[in-house]
């Protein structure tokens, strides 16, 4: 029986690249969380400054620190997306 040796290299590369592109886009959905959370935090900060204007320096500083910490999960999503787009770790495993 004759076996046809079909070369699947091109197809595998195409699948990996397409899936990486989809994954990079999906990873950015992680940007919703910090958007909502930090918006809420800034709203609360504005409220407290309105209630007590002389605390505005301390409130602003604390708000910035809190926002930068809450931002970190969004940055993780961006990091995954950038890795998939520019330094794809999967593509070296399929090129034969």
């Amino acid at each position, binding site marked *: 029986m004759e076996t046809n040796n079909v070369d699947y290299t091109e197809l595998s590369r195409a699948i990996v690249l397409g899936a990486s592109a989809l994954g990079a886009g999906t990873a950015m959905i992680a940007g919703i969380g910090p958007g909502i959370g930090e918006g809420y935090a800034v709203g609360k900060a504005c409220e407290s400054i309105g209630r007590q204007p002389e605390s505005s320096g301390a409130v602003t500083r604390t708000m*910035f*620190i809190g926002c*930068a*910490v809450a*931002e*970190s999960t969004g*940055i*993780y999503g*961006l*990091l995954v997306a*950038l890795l998939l787009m*520019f*330094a794809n770790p999967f593509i070296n495993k399929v090129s034969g």
Partner: protein
Amino acid sequence: MSISDFLRGSPDGVDVSGPKIVCSFDLGGLTINLTETIVLSWGIILVVTLLLLWLTSDLKTKDISKKQAVAEWAVKTVYGLVEDTMGKRWRWFAPYIGALFTFSILGSLISMLGLRSVTADFNVPLTWALITFVLIHGTNIKTHGFGGYLKGYVDPVPVMLPINILSEIATPVSMSLRHFGNVVSGMVITSLLYYALSVITAKIGVAFMTIGIPAVMSLYFDLFSGFMQAFIFIMLTMVYISNADGNAET
């Protein structure tokens, strides 16, 4: 992409890769790579050392010069911040915080000169985060004793043991990834912006859009982001260490 490519408007694509290796040593089977990061870090150390030597030359008690006023303001700010966050007991910790902040912010700001940020190499924030990790656990053991330290893991319920271990591991991972991720994403976005502007310039032929716009954008991505991340890193270091200390007195 280089400055000449950018001004000429010849788009070659975005190149986002790790720090280049300047030279390699081979020490008996072990290869040591001298990367861009190491060279630039030593450059920063040299510049800061010379700057500090200049600032602290010629100190007087009365009738101080302007540079002595700047030096005194810097020292007062750092010591004040450490005392506010950690309490008076930790006043001796301020030199490490000052050095870390200076290194971090200069390492990120170097990207405004066209060089690759020192903090865009994951080894650098990882090292600082691991130093903080060792300091946290060392302080914990020193304050509570080794038995108290181990008992803290099963506090309040023994079921919490895996969660406590996980949150201890998450501390250096999140600190380093946050700093690294912010700086690297700023670097990638800036290089994408340069690429896009140079594509437009190649079509038009006149380099009028490549001047000015990247400078304004890099105010946010490089300057603000680098400063905020350095500040957050030292604030988190101080807060974690003073939490591990536990005693809330001065």
